[in-house]
């Protein structure tokens, strides 16, 4: 077989493997609904068709993909570069909080400058958090898997404290932080839904990361080191450097996603803001096979599962968290070598 043909069929096998995981998860969804719902037909309808029946729901679904795209991109970069970032939750939260803080400390900047300032704040804070784990790995070989998670968990409590304590907005009934000025908010598209121009930002971010990884000198070093450290060393690349940089990029993207949540949607920080967005990024990156552009459709699929659950919860008798069961099934199956090997054998012999 020609090398190009082998390449094509390998890609096809990978695609079929991903599809298997997706189909299996959808089957589990159907089974769960039959098991848990009094009126499975109605629930199924709302789950699978619901997200497309109203513009409001549909555009809100798109909106909810924005932070997941950012965290998915961050995780994809980390995985591509051979490091692990389990700190998405804390990075999003810290990114969001810093945006709120900057917004309240500098309330009188011109709108667009303010917005940019807030977003940069989220990016920088996320990158700093990631770098700490990278430095610990580089200097003392401390597991990045553990420190990203631990630092993030600690940060979640600190941000929670800031929201509940010094920066709480006493005028609001709901527990939340003070709000950033209206002038810093991104403009909505497709009102009355929450969809905002941040969606274009997310798409541009995906394109940028794709460009970074594929077409730049730095991206090349990240890919080479991430794919094979011995090969990188053999080629004269200083491999020690490549713990800090990928974790900084990863954390930066995820922190940026947090800031986007503030300027795009919420205007203020509250305790449930992350709600698993950091973890969702891991799932999305895996479905996308660590490919930055693949993160876009993968994130859409991910939020479709969630939006379906939300619609079904409102209109029928299941709870929203069945989406979490379904996504955990995807997690289980998305790396199952047996399915990928099965398709490779079928297609390559």
């Amino acid at each position, binding site marked *: 077989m020609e090398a190009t043909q082998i390449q094509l069929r390998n890609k096809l096998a990978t695609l079929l493997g991903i599809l298997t995981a997706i189909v299996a998860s959808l089957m589990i969804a159907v089974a769960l609904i039959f098991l848990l719902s009094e009126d499975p037909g109605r629930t199924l309808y709302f789950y699978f068709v619901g997200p497309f029946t109203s513009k409001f729901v549909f555009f809100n679904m798109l909106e909810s993909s924005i932070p997941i795209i950012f965290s998915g991109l961050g995780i994809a970069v980390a995985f591509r570069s051979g490091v692990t970032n389990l700190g998405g939750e804390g990075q999003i939260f810290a990114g969001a909080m810093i945006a709120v803080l900057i917004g309240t400390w500098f309330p009188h900047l011109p709108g667009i400058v303010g917005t940019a300032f807030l977003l940069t704040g989220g990016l920088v804070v996320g990158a700093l958090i990631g770098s700490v784990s990278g430095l610990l790995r580089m200097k003392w070989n401390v597991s990045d898997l553990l420190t990203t998670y631990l630092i993030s968990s600690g940060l979640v409590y600190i941000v929670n404290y800031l929201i509940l304590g010094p920066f709480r907005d006493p005028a609001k009934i709901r527990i939340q932080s003070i709000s950033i000025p209206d002038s810093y908010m991104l403009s909505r598209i497709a009102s009355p839904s929450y969809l905002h121009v941040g969606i274009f930002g997310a798409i541009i971010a995906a394109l940028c990361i794709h460009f970074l990884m594929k077409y730049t000198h730095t991206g090349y070093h990240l890919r080479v080191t991430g*794919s094979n450290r011995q090969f990188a060393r*053999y080629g004269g690349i200083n491999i020690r450097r490549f713990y800090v940089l990928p974790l900084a990029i990863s954390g930066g993207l995820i922190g940026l996603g947090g800031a986007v949540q503030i300027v795009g949607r919420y205007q203020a920080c509250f305790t449930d803001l992350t709600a698993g967005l950091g973890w969702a990024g891991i799932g999305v990156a895996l479905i996308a096979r660590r490919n930055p552009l693949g993160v876009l459709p993968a994130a859409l699929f991910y939020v479709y599962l969630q939006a379906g659950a939300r619609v079904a919860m409102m209109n029928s008798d299941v709870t929203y968290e069945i989406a979490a069961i379904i996504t955990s099934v995807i997690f289980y199956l998305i790396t199952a070598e047996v399915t990928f090997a099965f398709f490779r054998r079928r297609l390559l012999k």
Partner: protein
Amino acid sequence: MAIESPVLFEMENIHKIYDGNNVYANKGVNLSVNRGEIHAIVGENGAGKTTLMKILCGLERANEGEIRFNGKPVSIESARDADMLEIGMVHQHFCLFDGFNVADNVVLTREPRKNGLFYDRVNAAKKVEELGAKYNLPIDPGASIESLSVGEKQKVEILRILYRGSKVLVLDEPTALLTEQEIKGFFVTLRQLKSLGYTIIIITHKLDEVTEISDRVTVMRNGEVVNCCITEECDTQAIARMMVGKEVLLQVEKPEVKPGATVLKINGLSLTVPGFSNPILNDISLSIREGEIFGMAAVAGNGLADLENVLTGMNSRGEVSGEAILHGKNIANMHPGELREMGMAYVPADRLQRGTSAELQLSDNMILLEHHKMTRAGVLQGKGILAFVKELLLKYNIVGHHATPVNNLSGGNIQRVVLSREFSRDPNLLVVSEPTWGLDIVSSEFVYQKIVEMRSSKTAILLISANLDEILALSDKIAVIYRGEIVGVFANTNLDRESLGEYMLGLKRQSKEEILHGVEA
């Protein structure tokens, strides 16, 4: 009952292809072993000896073929099946466990128990001590594995298979890392085991040992059995010829090139590794000139791989002393990046783990050394890269698209990718290790042709190879390494495989003066 046949077991028409590289490790092998004999299996690296024994021991499965024990067909699909047939193997890389003592290692999976539940440490120690005494393999059962010498570790391995009640002992390169003294003792043990009725299969490529210890010898080459004879009836020279084969498959046209100035000068280079009493490389001295191919030949396990690592900045075990001077600088402990800048190109023996990155596409693999030049403002210059890669694809006749991941290519094409990258830089020093290992003839010829072209363009070339054909076909000068030392240096005129083979196998060595003279010449 009829008289028992002398044959204990037979392996018939065994075929084995490893996944991934479509090369036959065993190609229709037949082996017959008699009860109570010491049977040597000899052959060069990659001849398929170990694979055959792993099949016998249930660690690999043959694609085809039959094994008969006492005339009855058996299926050996796991280590346990082999256990049932009382076959035990001592691997070249010992299967010992750090953190356990000698007795623990011996009895593992057959632990004596007390109260049916607990491991009986005392009893285990006692049994191992008794076993050691019975077979004349005395060893302290309470010693920790990490503290043992290689010879003692081997004793533990042998005790383990004896403890498990194996009657057929398969020993893979048992003497490779032993000292002369240890080897003597080891042979005493083997003879004693034989006298007790054990059947012993010993894989080796040391011919003096074959004549000393074995009753019969099976010679393998390229995955096939070339001959099987009674040891007493054939002489060492004949076995050596069979092992290495007569025909030189490849003819390489080497144009006349007058060697120029010295490029690399190595003085007393040694490598010591903690835990090994003898240096892995001992006092290596040589010099390589422009337009010269200097061949380093040795049987695997004699230090070639370490020499490769030390010279290319990839060494991460042990301590290097002595010097290797390239352009007036000692490169012995340099980072690969610095070596690259000084104009070294390097084709590693491990082309899958080191020479390429399997999941990256072809172009990414090919620009590894040149991508700095192909970057403007931090952005890789797509057009320039594409032109560069396409030119190399054409020039090196690589079947593949520039975006094809390397793991979708055949072995020959992967090696072409490595060559294209390394050779296109006009290096002044080229280190090439095992360049045709696992390649077919067409690819091998291509590789040779390219190496010779580099020689014509006045590159100094160090060729490291355990393949004698290759060494003889390409080199201008040849050094043979045995146990980490240079044991002979020759100009490649009127040399033949047999005589070189004798040096590689440790049957002969030159005097210090001869070696010095050879290096200086």
